[in-house]
């Protein structure tokens, strides 16, 4: 399964041609205001439905144009998690269990199936201990995990995740990336918008860089994070790449620019002894 789109909308984003393969974790990076959230909204179908403005081009999921698909049913195909944990609680349920069940209720799933799915999901995400808590009483990190669980319960094959860890502390961030890893291992196709480059380098298969509404770079983590062009688009390198680039600049020959911790350890240990 793959999805492709080419769009141009006013000046928010221009001529975006993007293909994401099934099971791929595609990371979308760029300065704030470069169009990342616009791209997410286009994929989820919120643009053009909810937002004014012109859009040309199409979004194809599995070859099918989603322009006419009912937005509620689209939730079966595309799950969406975003930055603010507080507004991702429905607000109509007083326990986490029911909150996670909410999506399945809306989709008319049989009550027995709902129960078993919710149990599975709570188990998978590791929030069984929160099942009877009121969602409003949870911390930001816990709310975010409940948000993931609520979407996962509907088991969509695609996840669009927009800056899920911005409002969280390091522990909360780690918990969320554990979930993202889990989704990836379960074969989900993921579009992830994030600023934390080290984590992107660790988990992403494909990195896409936006600059001022245009898609300017696309490739593997090594290709993008190892390229000098990245700096011109006001995007940070992972610290490991910085280290590698700095070491290379100081005269030490390096075969590649490491982007993750493992690569940096391996490359630099070797370089130390050469």
């Amino acid at each position, binding site marked *: 399964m793959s999805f492709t789109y080419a769009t141009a909308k006013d000046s928010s984003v221009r001529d975006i041609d993007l293909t994401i393969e099934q099971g791929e974790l595609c990371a979308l990076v760029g300065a704030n205001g470069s169009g990342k959230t616009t791209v997410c909204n286009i994929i989820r179908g919120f643009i053009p439905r909810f937002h004014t403005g012109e859009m040309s081009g199409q979004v194809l999921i599995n070859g099918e144009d989603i322009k006419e698909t009912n*937005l509620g049913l689209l939730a079966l195909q595309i799950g969406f998690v975003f930055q603010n944990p507080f507004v991702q*609680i*429905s607000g109509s349920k007083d326990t986490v269990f029911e909150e996670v069940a909410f999506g399945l*209720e*809306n*989709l008319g799933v049989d*009550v027995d199936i*709902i129960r078993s799915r919710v149990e599975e999901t709570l188990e998978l995400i590791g929030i069984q201990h929160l099942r009877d808590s009121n969602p409003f009483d949870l911390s930001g990190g816990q709310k975010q995990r409940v948000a993931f669980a609520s979407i996962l319960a*509907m088991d969509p094959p695609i996840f669009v995740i927009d800056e899920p860890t911005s409002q969280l502390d390091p522990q909360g961030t780690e918990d969320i990336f554990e979930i993202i890893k889990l989704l990836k291992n379960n074969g989900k196709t993921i579009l992830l918008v994030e600023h934390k480059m080290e984590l992107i380098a660790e988990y992403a298969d494909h990195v896409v860089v936006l600059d001022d509404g245009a898609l300017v770079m696309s490739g593997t983590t090594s290709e993008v994070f190892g390229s000098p062009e990245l700096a011109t688009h006001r995007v940070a390198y992972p610290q490991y790449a910085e280290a590698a680039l700095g070491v290379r600049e100081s005269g030490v020959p390096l075969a590649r620019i490491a982007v993750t911790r493992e690569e940096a350890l391996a490359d630099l240990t070797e370089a130390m002894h050469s």
Partner: protein
Amino acid sequence: MASRIRALYPGTKLIIALAIGISAFIVPTYWFGFAAFGLAVIVAFVCGEGKAYLKLVRNSLLILLIFMFVMRLLFSGGKTIYWQWGYMIISAESIAVSLAFVSGVLALGSFLLLFFMLTPVKDITAALSNAGLPPSGTYVVLSAIQMIPEMRKQSATIMDAQKTRGVETEGKLFTRIKAFVPTLGPLILSSIASTEERVITLESRGFTAPVPKTRLYVVTKRRVDTTIEIIVIVAFVAVIAGRIALSLL
């Protein structure tokens, strides 16, 4: 006993509350209303919510009742005058009228409060769903209820933010009121902003999917509920009949 009262179907509880409350206006003696209130208090204590219930009644009904009593007392005219000043007259008749009215409001108000205290919102909306309320209606009621404590928190946060900008909020009552009013704007604005995002959340949970929804949490009407409802309605009709008979005699 307490659990059996709580386990009654929401619709049943409401019918009981309304029957007793409205009867207080129909029955010719004002003692009925005060007795009804007494009954409500007893039920509240039996269910373990006595103190909270009294506090609720005090905070919501008391001022209303005092106001209504005084208004009727002074402005109902009457023949057996005890005291007069300008247009204000306290008479035997005005005393009787105001007591009767207040006992009615007390009975109805206290039983409705009892109803809401003993019936979780979940149950109410589930019963409304059974009666045909669409899911959007259910959602609106439930989220509105949940929002109230959240808005209170948000209001406190906004007051704090005002303080950090040098706005004096402590001290005389007038200062505090003056400081509170400008917080309404931001409160509404941020509520609107989060509502927009919550709509997105609802969409992401398939809320607008054109399929019949299933419900995890349901309340069902049992035979005992129907039986009680019939008894109550019959009694209520008897009260009305009795009142009509009385007035014809």
